[in-house]
């Protein structure tokens, strides 16, 4: 799969780092990239199910472009949200929908995602995509 340019660069950056802890640190740093969805607004609709910790996402379409608001208790989760933000914010919905969740694996952050519930990333990603799809 080909990724959006910003994301592709990020993946490459990650792949250059051998040490897993360092990669986690890089994800943590991405937590600042989210457009914050303030805890006061967190609600049942925005909640990502199956996450260990609280994680919320909210999608709006602004001027035909995806605008992802998000926030999480855990920094790793919010960091992944930040990466997702970089990948899709400002794209047309149809464009955003092309993204696959595999990037987190390619970045060497999550050991295995596919059918597993071992982390909430997959659920978060699916929820965002589902919300975007409603706008298409």
């Amino acid at each position: 799969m080909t990724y959006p340019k910003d994301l592709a660069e990020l993946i490459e950056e990650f792949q250059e780092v051998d040490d897993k802890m360092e990669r986690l640190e890089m994800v943590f740093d991405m937590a600042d990239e989210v457009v914050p969805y303030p805890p006061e607004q967190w609600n049942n609709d925005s909640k990502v199910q199956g996450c260990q910790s609280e994680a919320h996402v909210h999608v709006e379409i602004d001027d035909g472009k995806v605008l992802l608001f998000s926030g999480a208790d855990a920094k790793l989760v919010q960091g992944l949200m930040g990466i997702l933000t970089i990948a899709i914010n400002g794209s047309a919905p149809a464009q955003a929908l092309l993204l696959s969740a595999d990037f987190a694996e390619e970045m060497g952050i999550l050991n295995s995602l596919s059918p597993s519930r071992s982390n909430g990333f997959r659920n978060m990603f699916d929820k965002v995509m589902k919300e975007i799809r409603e706008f298409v």
Partner: protein
Amino acid sequence: MAIRDDFPILKREVNGFPLIYLDNAATTQKPQIVLDAMNEYYTSSNANVHRAVHTLAGEATEGYETCRQQLKNWFNAERVVMTSGTTEAINLVAHSWGRANLSAGDVIVLTEMEHHSDIVPWQMLAEERKIELRYIPVLEDFTLDMDIYAASLEGAKLVCVVHTSNVLGVRNPLEDIIQMAHANDTLVLVDAAQGVPHERIDFQECGADFMAFSAHKMCGPTGIGALLIDSEVFETMQPFMGGGDMIETVTVDGSTYQTDEHKFEAGTPRIAEAVGWSAALDWMSKLDLKKEHQRLIKIARWVAEQLRTMGMSVYGRHEELDSAVVSFLHPTIHSEDLAHLFDSRGFAVRTGHHCAQPLLNRLGIASTVRASFYLYNTIEEAQLFIEQLKEITERFG
């Protein structure tokens, strides 16, 4: 023969003779790669699944859920609940669907050909909920009485039918059974414990609402099985057992449940078993199951013919789609004695009521000797079996 080489147990001797394992309808043997997969799991990824972040837990979860995904692919099914086997799967339906959807006066249709595992759960539910059970008789030609079936559908909420009889090898006309039931808005549960090992089934195409089977009868490990559920019916079911992993939240005031298959899988699941079953499915997917089945049913037919020629009573018909199971009785040697005599020469056959007493009652007998053939059995073994029977008959008959 390549297939045989994959099964280490087939090299064993019994009472000084090479093992000839003809008890496959009870349980099948396991290819080496199934054992390797479980060993690999235990020696490199063992951990508890779900809701954990460490590497081993991720691998274990992946291993467990991969099995579910493989079953979904294999059967073209949308909902696959992992159970400890066919029996638990059927009990799950009785509990989770039955208690949520049936009430006094409702009717469940069973057949006389059912295994006890597809009778007793319904008897228990019937007693608790005042439900009527109707049993479809088995005819002289070892098939179901389809006229009585048609008539008995009136007012029925569920039909429970065995895909293939574990005593007779008879494969029932499921396509008709399901179509007639659905025309009547009746759901159908298929006990496919004996069907799945010999026939590749497309769950959605066949149209059943529930299908239950066990891994151990299809080269997989003990302790695991599955229930396929139609995705609409799935939504009408209440939880089965309560506990870890099947909940969304628990408070002292009450709990909410998962909405997917995990709702029905309380507690630490059968992780190593799922990994082993995956390997068994992988192994089986490399075979031409249809061709193998044709080979086996030919063996069974030949054995049945030989037995009849020798004056045995044979119970079954061994048609194209039937399984390679041959049940018979010796005219003079008691079935239990016969099984002991076979064992003394290395042959494993089963005797008894095969957990199908109502069927045996109908047939007017208390037991049969049953030889059941599977992928690793050969025509040579069948010939040895017949020769052995001749020798036994000469000496003890």
